[in-house]
């Protein structure tokens, strides 16, 4: 036996570790879900973070928006982090879910459920058609084309037919059509749980997809598209599948966001909104699910709190030169985004590994779970090549 060969083969240890890891990860997910589910029953005060106790309607509303954005970020990451295609039209699906539902409820008199289902149907058809056209170009071209589609939807919503969409003001959802359990300040907790259910659904779809064969093909397309083609498979179909699933999830997110806001708003159709989704994913760590969820929650929290903070007295007392940029949430988000791209490639998700690496000076490189798996795989392969079986 050679001295550097471990007693148990590397592949076996990594299999043991990953089965233990799966159980631990499942326990973590359940724990996180239970904690999030219990928030409306808690009266804990977090001064400086939230204005009221956790169970106050204001805090729950803020948290619900954070959860919806985390779900949207997961759907966007399916495209960007998982399949490696950069879409700048993701907001159009959110817009579609919001506006189709609102218009059917307000102007055609259908029930909320039927309208929401119709909205999802429109989202599905739009995703298939737009994806089929836009995916004919790769990479940057795809980004530009989806941006143009998003802009077309935005124009349609803002100035296409103000009688239907309410133009720049947006359109209030007819409150009579909303079930009693989902309307009124007292029922904010129900909306919060709805948002949590949406996030859980997005997470479940993305988790399940990444372990399925189409999901693995999507990752293969991201890693090396030519290789997928050489293997005789069509990358186009897998990219289209990712685009359609992400689009339908985003449409559903639009419906939930509509219920949270009580009306459709054209801000979701703007290019800033879609760029915001990209910022969330990159901030958290593209392709890393916990990171993406954290990025979505942080972005939504920052976006809402910075607007509040900018009106606060501590900012107002600053000298003008410093004050006016600080009153622009987009300025702060843009600058912090550039900072993350520069100094924290891989996003917040790599932060624990970096901290661990900096506390252990012997290890120069931050070793993440993926690195370790890759190292084990390489070791196992080279061992096979050096010492063939038999």
């Amino acid at each position, binding site marked *: 036996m050679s001295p550097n060969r471990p007693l148990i083969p590397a592949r076996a240890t990594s299999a043991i570790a990953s089965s233990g890891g799966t159980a631990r990860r499942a326990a973590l997910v359940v724990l996180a879900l239970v904690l999030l589910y219990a928030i409306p029953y808690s009266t804990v005060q977090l001064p400086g973070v939230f204005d009221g106790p956790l169970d106050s309607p204001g805090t729950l509303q803020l948290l619900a928006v954070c959860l919806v954005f985390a779900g949207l970020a997961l759907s966007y990451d399916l495209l960007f982090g998982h399949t490696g295609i950069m879409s700048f039209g993701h907001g159009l699906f959110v817009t579609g879910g919001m506006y189709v539902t609102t218009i059917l409820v307000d102007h055609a008199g259908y029930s909320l459920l039927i309208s929401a289902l119709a909205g999802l149907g429109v989202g599905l058809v739009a995703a298939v058609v737009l994806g089929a056209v836009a995916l*004919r170009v790769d990479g940057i071209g795809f980004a530009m084309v989806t941006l143009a589609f998003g802009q077309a939807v935005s124009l349609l919503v803002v100035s296409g037919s103000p009688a239907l969409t309410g133009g720049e003001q947006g359109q209030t959802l007819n409150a009579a059509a909303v079930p009693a359990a989902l309307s009124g300040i007292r029922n904010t907790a129900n909306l919060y749980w709805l948002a949590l259910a949406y996030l859980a659904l997005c997470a479940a779809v993305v988790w399940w997809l990444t372990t399925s064969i189409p999901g693995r093909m999507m990752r293969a397309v991201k890693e090396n598209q030519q290789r997928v083609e050489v293997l005789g498979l069509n990358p186009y179909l897998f990219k289209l599948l990712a685009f359609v699933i992400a689009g339908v999830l985003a449409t559903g997110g639009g419906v939930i966001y509509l219920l949270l806001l009580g009306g459709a708003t054209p801000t979701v159709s703007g290019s800033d909104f879609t760029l915001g989704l990209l910022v969330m994913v990159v901030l958290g760590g593209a392709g890393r699910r916990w990171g993406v969820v954290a990025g979505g929650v942080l972005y939504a929290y920052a976006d809402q709190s910075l607007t509040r903070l900018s009106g606060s007295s501590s900012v107002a007392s600053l000298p003008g030169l410093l004050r006016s940029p600080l*009153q*622009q949430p987009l*300025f702060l988000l843009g600058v912090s985004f550039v900072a993350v791209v520069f100094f924290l490639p891989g996003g917040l998700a790599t932060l624990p590994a970096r901290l661990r690496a900096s506390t252990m000076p012997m290890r120069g490189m931050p070793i993440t779970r993926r690195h370790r798996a890759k190292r084990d795989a390489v070791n196992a392969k080279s061992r096979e090549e050096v010492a063939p079986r038999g």
Partner: protein
Amino acid sequence: MVSTLILLSATGLGLAALYFLVASGLSLIFGLMDVLNFAHGAFVAVGGYAAWTVADHVAGGFGLGLALIAAVAGGAALAALTELFIIRPLYARPLDQVLATVGLGLAIPALLQAVWGADPRTWTLPGWLAGTVNLLGAHIPTVRFVLIAAALALLGGLRLLLARTRAGLVVRAGVENREMVAALGIDVHRAFTGVFALGGAAAGLAGLLDGLYQGSISPGDGTSLLIFAFVVVVLGRMGSLTGTAVASAAVGLVQQFANYLSPNLGDESVVILLAAVLLLRRRDLKGRPA
């Protein structure tokens, strides 16, 4: 009827000139460096505000001349700084280059809004620019001709630069094969900064002319212009100057004529044009067979 046609064509070509000023820089930058520059709209906005501020302090034609210099210098300086301090350290990470320009594209217009406010600032044109020109019975605002002349001058200047100078030769060779140019011992990175500064100068000029065309400027103007410039770049095949010019004219004219039929139809028809071309075209964005 004829005068309506002429008016629509002149307006469409004026718009096309703006698109060309923005898209030519984008197209060259993408062709040479494979960077989709989302901060280009911010260059337009900065040029526009620099020009407006100068013209606000110095009145008349002389002020407009100074504003022109401010717009071009402002756009070029910002673009060169972006290339040196944002793009250059990220050469090894192409995706992060695009992401960093996205961050700039969000932050710079917000900064402009912090300094100049969200409300549009109105341009007061000098007398000789404010009037109209009578062309076969159509009264066409003089500014449109200024726009078209600026775009034609840029097209001619760029063609000469690319075809007749050594720097242009390096850029053309870099668009074809960047690695080969670097292997021959030519400093491609200097060409990168130069192309960025040139694109920024054209964008700054577009900022000034957009202000004159619309009669006012606001922080988001550059970004909305950028989206149509992207469409032009995709239609005109990236890295090709002639293609960009033809696509600009097509987009501007289609938009104006469709808007005449029904308001708001213009922007939608541009997107439909884009989708149709993508469906029918069998080549990739740089014109190679797909």
